[in-house]
């Protein structure tokens, strides 16, 4: 591959052992959204998973977990050891018929698709606190999906529904050039990766 004359790693650049290929560390918490940030009043908020639905107060009564995970955005930034609090998707799925796929739907119309098995066994949460504070609207509050082992667009902000399906349909970014699955360790950024 071509060498870029004069380009070199900056001395303070962190080691990349903990990072998926092509990623770099950011100290900030960048925001990516396709449109205006929805502002969802808590008394109107609902989370629907299959036939079940929770109000905000009901949701907060569900057992929650503290989660410390690395997150990886497809635009190449990663952030290590982020701290969240939320409800495991395993808890939300209790008692439901199994399915094969999930379409996550958000306030504002965003969607993203995932295999159901990527949301179970302690791999995914609906998170509402970030670093000990209520999740800011621009970062997906009141609550967002958190699926840290996939690129972060799969962690739908402002999530309001997990629709369980038998067939896989591409969501918003997945129809616009981004990979259907999005594993950062296999660098599945775009169609065909």
């Amino acid at each position, binding site marked *: *591959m*071509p*060498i*870029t*004359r*004069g*380009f*070199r*790693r*900056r001395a303070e*650049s962190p080691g990349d052992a903990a990072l998926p290929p*092509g990623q*770099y560390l*950011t100290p*900030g918490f*960048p*925001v*990516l*959204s*396709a*449109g*205006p*940030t*929805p502002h969802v009043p808590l008394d109107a908020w609902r989370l629907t998973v299959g036939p079940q639905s929770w109000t905000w107060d009901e949701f907060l009564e569900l057992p929650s977990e503290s989660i410390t995970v690395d997150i990886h*955005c497809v*635009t*190449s*930034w990663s952030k290590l050891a982020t701290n969240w609090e939320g409800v495991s998707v395993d808890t939300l799925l209790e008692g439901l018929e199994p399915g094969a*796929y999930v379409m996550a739907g958000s306030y*504002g*119309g965003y969607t993203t*698709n995932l*295999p159901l098995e990527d949301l179970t066994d302690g791999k995914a949460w609906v998170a509402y606190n970030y670093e000990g504070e209520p999740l800011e609207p*621009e970062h997906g509050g009141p609550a967002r999906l958190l699926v840290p082992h996939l690129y972060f667009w799969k962690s739908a902000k402002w999530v309001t529904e997990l629709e369980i399906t038998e067939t*896989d*349909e*591409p969501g*918003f*970014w*997945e*129809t*616009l*050039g981004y*990979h*259907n*699955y999005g*594993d950062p360790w296999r660098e*599945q*950024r*775009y*169609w*065909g*990766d």
Partner: protein
Amino acid sequence: MSSATGATERRIVGWQPATVREVIRETPSATTLILDVPGWRGHRAGQHADIRLTAEDGYQAQRSYSIASAPEDGYPSITVERLDDGEVSPYLVDDAQPGDALEIRGPVGGWFVWETSDGGPLMLVAGGSGVVPLRSILRHRALAGSDAPARLLLSARAPESVIYRDELAGADTTITYTRSAPDGWTGYARRVDRDMLAAVGFAPAERPRIYICGPTAFVEGVAADAVALGHHTDRIRTERFGATGG
């Protein structure tokens, strides 16, 4: 694994070698690089591309940048703003020279785009170097001969920080200076707010397509103002470049 579903016929092309053809110093902190990319398959106005640099020791770094050129230009160009603590942007802004080799992947992104068939009116709102993809849209509009009405509202810190100043100058461009304005300036000299957006933009009844690009706080504020003025959220597209810095 579902990775093949829906993507079997569609591919984003892989990394392609690129050579810097021309370097344009836009402002003290922003540089445009025009790239020669053999086999470049073209792009839509508003899309972005990933750029990858390789050091002599094999170390690589990649970042995502908006494409600044129009589809009609036939080449991709990027305009990069220097982030002082960044690793890639200082190189691209200060060190890159014609003939330098790098790699490009793209174009990418099918949302923050505009084509002449989308029509207008177009309301473009930029904060700082957020003007880059909007310049691609305006340039596409001009080169394609579109008659869609278009207005640009550009927020800049100071006169010397306006990218593409000469190209964008005109009756449909409104600049507001947030830190220092030229002597004798009678235009806007404050951050974009609801009143300014209402005065400069199209009325909600005209159903403009609104494109907003800039730092996160800028985009959050302008998008919220647009919604508050009565513009439908479906007509508002946003792009934030905080994520692609470095």
